[in-house]
Structure formats: C-alpha cells, structure tokens
C-alpha cells in the first residue's frame, strides 16, 4: 500500500473542527452518519466505575501492604506500621492528585507533551548519576521522597506517543514521518530505562509503544520488523547480564526461590485463603511480598477469590478505560486512554504472570496494590487522566496545541473559545480527515 510521502498538512486530525472549515467530502457519500471523535459530545461526569475500581484496589492494597509487611517492618524498622504508614501517606497524596488531574483538561498534556517527555528524559538521565541501590539506579532522592523516574516514564511516554500519533493521523503508516519518530523517542526512553537496569519497565515501554502504534493504525510490517530488530538487543540484555540470565535459567528450571515461594503462598491459600493476616509466607519466606509479590500474599490470605476480585478490578479498569477511549472527544484522548488502560493491563499481566510462574521474574509492580510511592502516585495520576478523558471535558484555552501556530497564521482565531466553536459546528458533519 503506497503511503503518501507528504500527506495533507495538518488534516484536522482531531479536536474541535477548525472554524469555518468547509466540509471536505469529496468521496462517495455514505448514508450512515459520519463517524466522529464525539467532538460535539457534552461534558459528562467522570466514569464512576473507574473510580470504584481504582479506590477499591487502592484500599485492598493498603490492607494487604499492611498485612504483608507488618512482620518485615517490625524486623527491619522496629515498627509494624512502617510500610503501611508510608503507603497510606502516598495513597492520600495520590487520591488528591487523581482528583486534581481528573479535573483538568487532559488536552493540556497534549500541548505540553514534549516538555513533559523532555523533563522525564532529563530525570532518567539524572538518575544514572545517583548511587546504586540493590545493583540498580532507579531512585532519585528528592528530599524525603524517593522518586522513581522510570515509573514516570511510562505515563510520560504514553502521553507523548498519544500526542505524536494524534498529530500524525494517517501519516502513522509512513515509515519516515510516522514510525520513525515514534520509535526514536520510545527507543531513547527505553535505552535510558535499560541503563537503569530495569529490563521489565523497558519491555513494558516497548509493549506500550507497539500497542499504541497498532491502535493508531501503523503498518504491522514495521511493528514486526521493529520487534525483530529489538529481539537481539533484548536477548543480549538477558543473556549478557548475569542476574537476568540467572533469573531466566531459574525460570526454565522452575526453581526460582521467590517464584517458588509465591506459588507456595498462592497454593496454600486455596479457594478462600487462610484468612486476612493469617498468611505465613510473609514471615521471611517470600521476599518482597509487599511490593512485586503482593499478589502472592493476596492469594495466600484471600485465596483464589481474592485474586479473582483483584483481576476483576483491573478488568473493570481496563474495560472502562477503553470505553473512555471509545467516547473520547478527540484522537489524542482516545490514544491516551488506550495507552493508559493498556499500561495498567500490561503491568498487571506481567506482574501476575511472574507471580504465577508463567514468565521469568521482572521488577514490575502491581498498580495500586504493590508497596511503592512512585508507582502508587503515578498509577493514581494516570487514573486521574483516564477520568479526565472519560469526562469529555470542554477544551481549555491552554489545551490548544496549535494555538501558537494559529495565532501566527490567523489572527482571527485569537482568543476564540473552542467550546463555542464546537457548539456551532455541532450540526455539521465532523471533519473526517482526508477521507
């Protein structure tokens, strides 16, 4: 399929239709109402399902973090509630952040996506110059808080790629103008994360990129080729790095200590579990059982029913996130919602697959449940973004990414209220880009 080397300039990919833009329907008219990005959709309340799922998981996470970490907290810090208190503080901050983010217009992020991306890249570079912790450099000490830039990188990349893809429109099928910029940015981010020795997040970012590209409609050839090109790198990263190789070998022999302990935890839980707080694997048998392996503790104490509840929670989050994408008022919103909800889904999949001994161990947290301030904050802010998308908010003035350009080109648009514009264009068929 030939790709236009130079597609129509800025073919109104999304968002409010340009004022006074004539309906450009040259093609054969169809009887059905033209599909739209719901540009005219009125603002609605935020999706309660997402709130319920997120807060439910968050609450369960707090309980389970306490249950899982009380013993180790007492052993290491002399205080049963050490981890619980920290997690509770971050949960409080996170909920505030979530509500705040859900109140803003997500399109602001589209406009500032490059800046956000750049800031995160700077942080990712900065973190490389910090002290090593547990053989990895992942944390930036910012006063009392340990920030994990790679957590931020996930959301930042989702935002940036969504913005870029939304801008590209049909150009996504082009290699040079579509695929290449995307892969370049994603590649730089992944490389930086990889330098932190965080292969799990790197692969997650890769998967996110591929998913977004797929949803945006790129050529599968590129995706496959890109994946194949990346495969040797991944392979060398796994086989060439001692501890990852050990993990892989451990997985292949199904003898990894941590995973084995996780299986014992889940297995001894059975249908209904040993009861909240009754778990025993947390007594020093299962390391990191309050962070990456919290699902094992859930399985042990709440049983298969507990795991089912958790999975249901995430399923609701992912489905409602994609529903938000379906009804998003613009292309960026759609891509963003798809990116964020699939980011949740992917993390959950990878984490649970590790705990349930389906893939080799990776350092991926379970959003909302695992102990970890950065992860929790980022997850809740991402939820706030999803909520914002689900709200279909009226665009703010700040949101218009082309405002500067428009101002330069057309003085008339200066100060115009996009909302008013949209209202006016409501009866018109929405712009169908280069249909």
């Amino acid at each position, binding site marked *: 399929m*030939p790709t236009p080397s130079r597609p129509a300039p800025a073919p109104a990919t999304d968002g409010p239709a340009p004022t006074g833009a004539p309906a450009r329907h040259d093609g054969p008219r169809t009887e059905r109402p033209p599909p739209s990005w719901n540009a005219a959709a009125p603002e609605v309340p935020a999706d309660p399902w997402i709130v319920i799922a997120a807060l439910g998981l968050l609450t369960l996470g707090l309980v389970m973090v306490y249950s899982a970490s009380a013993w180790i907290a007492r052993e290491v810090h002399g205080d049963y509630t050490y981890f619980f208190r920290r997690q509770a503080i971050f949960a409080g901050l996170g909920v505030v952040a979530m509500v705040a983010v859900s109140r803003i217009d997500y399109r602001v992020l589209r406009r500032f996506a490059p800046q956000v991306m750049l800031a995160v890249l700077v942080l990712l570079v900065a973190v490389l110059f910090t002290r090593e912790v547990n053989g990895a450099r992942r944390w930036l000490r910012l006063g009392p808080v340990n920030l994990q830039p790679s957590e931020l990188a996930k959301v930042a990349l989702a935002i940036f790629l969504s913005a870029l893809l939304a801008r590209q429109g049909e150009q996504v099928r082009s290699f040079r103008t579509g695929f290449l910029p995307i892969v370049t940015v994603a590649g730089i981010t992944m490389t930086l994360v990889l330098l932190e020795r965080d292969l799990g997040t790197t692969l997650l970012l890769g998967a996110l990129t591929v998913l977004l590209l797929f949803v945006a409609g790129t050529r599968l050839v590129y995706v496959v080729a890109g994946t194949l090109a990346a495969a040797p790198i991944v392979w060398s990263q796994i086989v060439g790095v001692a501890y990852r190789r050990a993990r892989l070998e451990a997985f292949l022999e199904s003898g990894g200590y941590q995973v084995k302990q996780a*299986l014992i935890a889940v297995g001894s839980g059975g249908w209904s579990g040993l009861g909240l707080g009754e778990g025993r694997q947390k007594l020093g*048998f299962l390391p990191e059982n309050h962070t990456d392996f919290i699902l094992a503790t859930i399985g042990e104490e709440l049983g298969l029913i507990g795991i089912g509840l958790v999975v249901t929670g995430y399923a609701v989050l992912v489905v409602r996130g994609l529903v938000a994408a379906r009804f998003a008022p613009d292309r960026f919103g*759609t891509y963003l919602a*798809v990116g964020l909800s699939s980011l949740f889904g992917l993390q959950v999949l990878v984490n649970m697959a590790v705990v349930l001994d389906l893939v080799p161990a990776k350092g991926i947290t379970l959003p909302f449940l695992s102990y970890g301030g950065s992860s929790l904050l980022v997850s809740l802010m991402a939820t706030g973004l999803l909520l914002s998308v689900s709200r279909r908010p009226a665009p703010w003035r700040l949101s218009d990414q082309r405002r500067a350009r428009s101002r330069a080109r057309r003085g008339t648009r200066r100060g115009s209220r996009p909302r008013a514009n949209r209202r006016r264009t409501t009866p018109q068929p929405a712009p169908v880009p280069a249909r």
Partner: protein
Amino acid sequence: MTPFGRRIRRLAAPMASDITAVRRRATIVAGVLLLALAGLLARAYEIAVVRRDTYAALAKRQQIRPKKLRPTRGEIVDRGHVALAVDDRVFRVVVNPRLIRAQDQLERVRAGLLSLVPTLDPKRLDAELARDKAYRRLPGLVDETVADRIYEAHLPGVHLEPTPHRVYPRGHLAAHVVGRVQAEGRGQLGVEYALDEFLHGRPTESPSTVARGTTLLLRGAPDPAMAAGHKVVLTIDSAIQAMAEEAIDTLVLEHRPVGASIVVLDPTNGEILALANRPTFDPNHPVPSLAQTRNLAVQAAYEPGSTMKAITVAAALEMGAIRPDETFYCEKGRWQATSEHVIRDTKPAEWLDVTKILAMSSNICTAKIYGRIGKQALYRWVRKFHFGERPPVRLPGATAGLLDPWEKWSDIQAANISFGQGMSASPLQVAAAFAALAADGVYRAPHVLRHVVDAKGNVVWAPSIEPERLVRPSTARTVLRMLEAVVASKVGTGKNARIEGYRVAGKTSTAQKASRFGGYAEDQYYASFVGAVPARAPRVVILVSVDTPEGKHYGNAVAAPTFARLGARILRYLAVPPEDERDDSDTPAGAAFDPERHEVALAAAVDTGMEPDLPGARGKRVQLGVPDFHGLSMAEALELAERSGLRLVPKGTGIAVAQDPPPGPTPPDGRVRVLFEPPA
C-alpha cells in the same frame, strides 16, 4: 481535495487512522488484555485449587517446625494431693574454657560468673577455666532467676543446661514409698521406680511457625502438660504418715532396734495410709548407705510369730474343728509335741478356752488346735491369707516371704507354723492378713496407689482390688472379739496397747530370729504388735514391728506402746467417736447390739457371691431372702433358716435335696419347705 488525495483514498480505503478502525483495534486490544487476564485467572485456579495439596504440603514443610518441649516428670502426691515429689527447673552452668581463652575473655567470664553465682568457689572456677577442655560442668545448680541473669550477661563460652532435678518437699516423709530418682532422672527406688513408665515425661513436639530462623508460636505457647509425665496419687495420708514417722522415731530412740516398721492400713479397702521404716533416708540427697533405702515393711521377711495364732484359730473355727468356747489343756508350759521336740509357753497354764489361748498367746494350745485341722488344711488356710505370695503392692522388691509346701513340712514345723515360726512374711503381709479378719473376713490386697492421672486429670491407671472372702463374717468377728481379750483382759499379753476410749483387737508377737548359723538366736527377737481399732468396726489396722530391739524384747513392751500412742492420734485425726468403756469387752455387747442380726445385714452388704472356698464346699448362699439349702444337714439348714429369719418346714431326713420356694426373694409367709434325703 487534490486528485492526488483522491487516489490515496481510493487505494488506502478504509484508512488506518479512521475512527472506526481505531476503535476496532482498541477493542481488539481490550479483548486480548481481557483474555490474558482470564488466562491468568485460570493459571491461578490451577495453582490455588488443582495443585493446592502439593503447595500446601510444601508450605507446611517449610513453615511448621515442631517445637520440642522439655519433658517433665510427673508428681507424686498423697491421697489429699499434697505433693511428695515434684520437678524443679534448675540449670547447670557449663563453660568452654578453650573458647573463653581463645576470645581472651577469661577475666570477664570469671568476674561475671563469680558475681552471678555466689555459691561458686573461685578456686574451683579458676581450675576449671584453666583446663584445656571445651566442655566443663561447673559444680552446683542454679535456679531460674540466676540462670536468666547469666543468660542476659551474654558471657562467651558459658552455657546453661536444663537439668532434671527432683525435689521431695517433705524430705524423708514416706521416703520408702515415694523413693527417689537417680542422676539421670529415672526412678531408682519406691514408686519413682515402680511407676517410672507413668511418671517420666515424654519429649513432645508442638507445631510452631518458623519466621526466618526464629520461632513463632502458632496457637499460643504449647501446653507444657503435653510433655509432662503422669501424676501418681498415693493412698498415703500425709498426716497419718507424719504421725507414724514421729511414732517410729520415738520407738527407735527408746529401743535402738536394727530396724523398725509401721504399717497403717484401712481394712475396708486395703489402702495403705502410712508406711514408715527405720532406718530411712532423705530422697533429696544421695543416700550414703544402701541399707537405708530398704523398705523393711515390704521387702524384709520375718517370722511373724504369734500373730499367726489368730489365723490358725480363724481357720479352725471356720472349719468347725473347734468351738469358740472349747477348752484345751496347755500342759503347764511344756509339751513334748513329738518325740524329739518340745514346745514351750512363756506363761505356763493348764485349761484355757480359745479366747484365753489367744490372750495368753499359748504356743502349746495353738499347736493343739492345729492338730485338729492337720497340715494340709493349715497350709491351705495360711495360703488363703496370702502368705507365701507377693502382694500386688507395686513397690519394688516386695517379698513373698517363705512358706514351704505342706508336703515338705515336718510335724514340728507344721506345729511351729501354727504359731508363726518356721515361715516368714513381710510386715505388710501380716498387716493385710490381719486386716482381712478386721474386715469381716474379706481380704483386700494392700496397695499404696490410688490411681495415676494424666495432666488433664483423667485416670490413666488404677489398681483393681478384688475383695476376696476368706472366712465367714461370723468367724472373723468371733476371732476379733477374742483378740480384744489380748489387750483388755487381765491375762492378756498386749495390755500396753490399750487406747483410752476405744476397744482394741490386736495380737502381740515376739519371734525368735533365725540365726545365721542355724537354729534360733537366743538374744535376737522380732517383736511386733498388730491391731485393729475400734475393734467392733475397725477403721485402721496398725502394725508396729521392731527388729532386734535392745533391752526388752516382748511385743507388749516394745511395739504395743507405740501402737497405742499412734492409734490414739490416728483415731483423733480420723474423728472416730470413742466407744462406751463401761461395756465389758470380754462378753458380747448388750441388748442394743444384736450380733446375729448385725452380722447378717453386714454380710449381705459386703459379700455377694463371695463364699469361703472350703474343702467340702457348700452351695452358695443368698444372705437376704431365701438361701440355698442344698447339701446342708438339717441342723445347718435350721440354723441358716433362723439366721435368715425364715421358718423351715423340714421333710424327710439326711441332706437337703430340694426346697420350695427356690433361692431368691422371701415368700410372704416366711416359710420354706425343704426335702431331706439320706445321702446315697
């Protein structure tokens, strides 16, 4: 739109970035993610449900560690659960001199130990620390408080070993019954030895959760009772035992014997209330001499002496060989019993009735009574009273005594046995046989154990004491009545055994001890007194035996006063009401006490289906209601009918062969017709 654009649209339709296409792909993404989540759930199901047992077993294996519980030895308590032997938590201090010197901590350890264990001898400690050894036990034991302090001091190379330590809070009280344990904590003597199987604790394990090396107790602290041995409850009454110990101490001070024993029995059930011996020992300390540990009352066999006369008389009466009021000629103290042997009495006499024979303890007349029943019957009767047989008292080393089978008896030996020489028995055997007479002729094996209970109080073991009828109640009562004369009559040999306010039925005994060189030693006696009080309804049987006293040697002089003193105290302790002393103890009681009626009622209460097993056995008798007259002569039948309160209507002569009504409930008219027929 340019033609260029149109061409694109035609070729590329539908466009990849089209809204519907984007949504379709988003749906695909959602589907894939949900499918993957469902797959994970399936995997979780496989682990949590399908392979649950495997993982649960693995979990148990690593999480649950048995916690070992230190076994503790069970207690020994008296009948009122007063502790006689208990376990204490003590520790032995062990040092590793090599390690201490290697760590250069000698001064610190030395100063620490000396300040914490004040009993430690500095020189001994220095000597131990100077040795090139890795394990040295320091002398002495420390209790828990000191042990805790040593533990908290964290002295290098110093360890604490929990050491079994048995404490006998009452010292030598009932030491021979309780016994003691040896250094390893196993029973060595007495009940500690005999019931070691019950007493010793079992190392027990209790499940506990392991948390990175430390132990978490899963369901609270394990019950230490799980590892504890059982508790042995004795029949001993500490108060009576203490009285017996005091009495025997007085006795020993007075008479300086080689050995002495006191046995206090409850004749109604065979329980040993007190058992004291001299010499004795304190089980809390190592015993210097083995002789001290010997439980003379159970392990030593003496010739019982005159006590046996009561048995001989009871046997003769039961067999009908003599009448209670029959008189015998006592040969003025010297009787050529056989061509070679002469039997002598200490108090020469001529004609004596049976009561007087017992009261004056005439050997000659007892031998004559024996002459009425013969060797075989005497042997059977002596065996019936459980002589020559180990009593099931469950105290180690209980002797059976010596009793040759009657076929081996020479004529003179048989005569000797009738008054308690030429055979031997332990004091306990004598007391038990006497108790059978005191209990209306029913023998109950003497025992020192009430029961064994586990930590929860469930009875684990209890002795089964089968009451056994030896003689008819009337016979037993007659003999006991005669024995009252021993103490009460002017000619009695046991006048020192009188207890103010109570009738005493007892028998003195002064036996010559067999010499090591054959024959009897002239100056060595075994003096004893055994008696039952109150005589008409005995509550206790007390035996006092003295082996080789200095000076006086008669049972009346040596043993009877101790019996009286101890008996008085015990009766007061048991709150037995004093009897009316105006009753003449030689004659049966007055109108208020109808012996015949009393006898029948009592017999019915104690024996059901227990009948003396005599040569020429009679049919069993129902004591209340219509008895079985079969096989009785008419005189016997008439007597029995009268005792049963029935009117006998005899028919024919000879032996009873049929009766109407049959044995069972009394008919309304109180008549029994019995058919007698001459024996074939």
